[in-house]
């Protein structure tokens, strides 16, 4: 029974981690149709922002939950204004540009921090479950993911910005004819997506540590989750995260982490073979 509780918490942590690392990409790709191959590097930057701030004496919660997303959101807005905005509607060019951007970001962080793993201790200690101990931070990640998804849903569903963003993504010309400035909405939305990647990087940093090349590990999983989730940004990300995160964790428990990741990839291939529109494209009509 204790083992089942521990495994359930770890599975929830895996699902929450997958959802967190994917949601920024889901917004940028799902709403703006921008294929951002630098998404992993946005997570990496968030991780470094959290680590540098924490080591500078700033409270770890402030570093991971506020500074990391803020720094990466600002970087994201700058990148959108200087690079991405010239490439809307040109997916191949966007892929090339963001791939180049990812190489640039890896290069510059390697120059600054070196090619060694930086890390900070996970806060909140451990919890005892019968004869087992688990990191309390695993539960905190789950709570953060729930809070983040609830906040995103509320912002896009109930706020003025959310209404403007959803309408602009559906029909920018008509939104402009109603007085909306689409370039500003695109910049803000890209900034939010980048900020969420930064938040995920900051939250994951105490568990994984950070190296300049860690983005490559994140970006593949994030893309698999977003594409597997289908067109509904939030419902798709959650459903694909639950599916792939659970498969990953169960197979990891039964074998090894490497085989767990292989199982995740195999599950994605099978899913897209039978549901080319992803989970939400097959089960739901398009929703956000």
């Amino acid at each position, binding site marked *: 029974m204790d083992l089942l509780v521990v495994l359930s918490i770890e599975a929830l942590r895996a699902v929450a981690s997958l959802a967190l690392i994917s949601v920024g990409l889901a917004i940028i790709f799902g709403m703006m149709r921008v294929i951002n191959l630098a998404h992993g590097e946005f997570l990496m930057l968030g991780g470094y922002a959290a680590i540098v701030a924490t080591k500078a004496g700033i409270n770890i919660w402030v570093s991971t939950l506020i500074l990391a997303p803020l720094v990466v959101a600002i970087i994201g807005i700058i990148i959108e204004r200087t690079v991405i905005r010239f490439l809307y509607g040109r997916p191949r060019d966007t892929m090339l540009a963001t791939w180049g951007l990812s190489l640039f970001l890896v290069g510059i962080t390697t120059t600054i921090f070196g090619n060694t793993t930086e890390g900070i201790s996970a806060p909140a200690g451990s919890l005892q479950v019968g004869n087992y101990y688990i990191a309390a931070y695993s539960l905190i990640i789950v709570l953060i993911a729930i809070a983040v998804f609830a906040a995103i849903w509320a912002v896009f569903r109930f706020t*003025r910005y959310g*209404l*403007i963003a*959803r*309408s602009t993504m*559906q*029909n920018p*010309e*008509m*939104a*402009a*004819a*109603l*007085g*909306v*400035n*689409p370039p500003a909405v695109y910049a803000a939305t890209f900034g939010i997506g980048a900020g969420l990647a930064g938040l995920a990087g900051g939250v994951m940093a105490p568990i994984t540590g950070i190296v300049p090349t860690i983005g490559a590990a994140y970006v593949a999983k994030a893309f698999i989750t977003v594409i597997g989730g289908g067109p509904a940004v939030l419902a798709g990300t959650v459903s694909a995260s639950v599916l792939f995160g659970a498969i990953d964790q169960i197979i990891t428990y039964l074998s090894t982490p490497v085989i767990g990741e292989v199982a995740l990839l195999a599950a994605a291939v099978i899913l897209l073979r039978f549901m080319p529109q992803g989970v939400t494209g097959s089960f739901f009509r*398009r*929703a*956000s």
Partner: protein
Amino acid sequence: MIEVTNLHSGYGRIPILHGIDLKMKPGEVVGILGHNGMGKTTLLRTLVGNIKATSGRIDFAGHDITRASTAERSRTGIGYVPQGRDIFPQLSVMENLKMGEIMRNGESAIPEMLDHFPVLKDLLERPGRGLSGGQQQILALARCLAGRPKLILLDEPTEGIQPSIVDLIAEKLGELRAALNLGIILVEQDIRFIRQLADRVLIIQKGVFVAEISPQQLYDREAVDAHLGI
């Protein structure tokens, strides 16, 4: 209210408008009649800012808006109901209406629009994509009017709409025009609809206005055909 002088525009290197001149007073309704491909929609898209003018000048409410963005033009009081309506398909009817006044301060015009178009009252939570063509047209018009424009550009509002809704739209536009001193540029193929609303009718051919006729002259089929080059 709006003055267009020697306006040229087109798509990329393909010129469509070849020197449009138009002057309208506040509250005036001008119908534009012409065959497909003559530049009617291009003219409206250029006036609203979706297509940039290659030369010429557009003055609206005393300001030169030739280089203004679409959003800036909207905020100065130009409303637009495009051909095909362009309802936001995934937004509810209420959200579509809110978008109409999203950039306007002050009291909401939505209750007033629902009084004018009560058919929308029972559809407020329904997504835009779930409406019939006629309901979408009414919603597009109500959304535009919720922004309290001084001038609206209507691109074939009767296209694919059942006659009872066409009559309703004509009736409401007539009422609102009088109540709000609303200017309307109406691109339309339905001669009966233009005749009901327009103060004067401009015939467009190959990107220029070639004639101006009164709505009464639209009863004279031979004259209309002659102006349209048939």
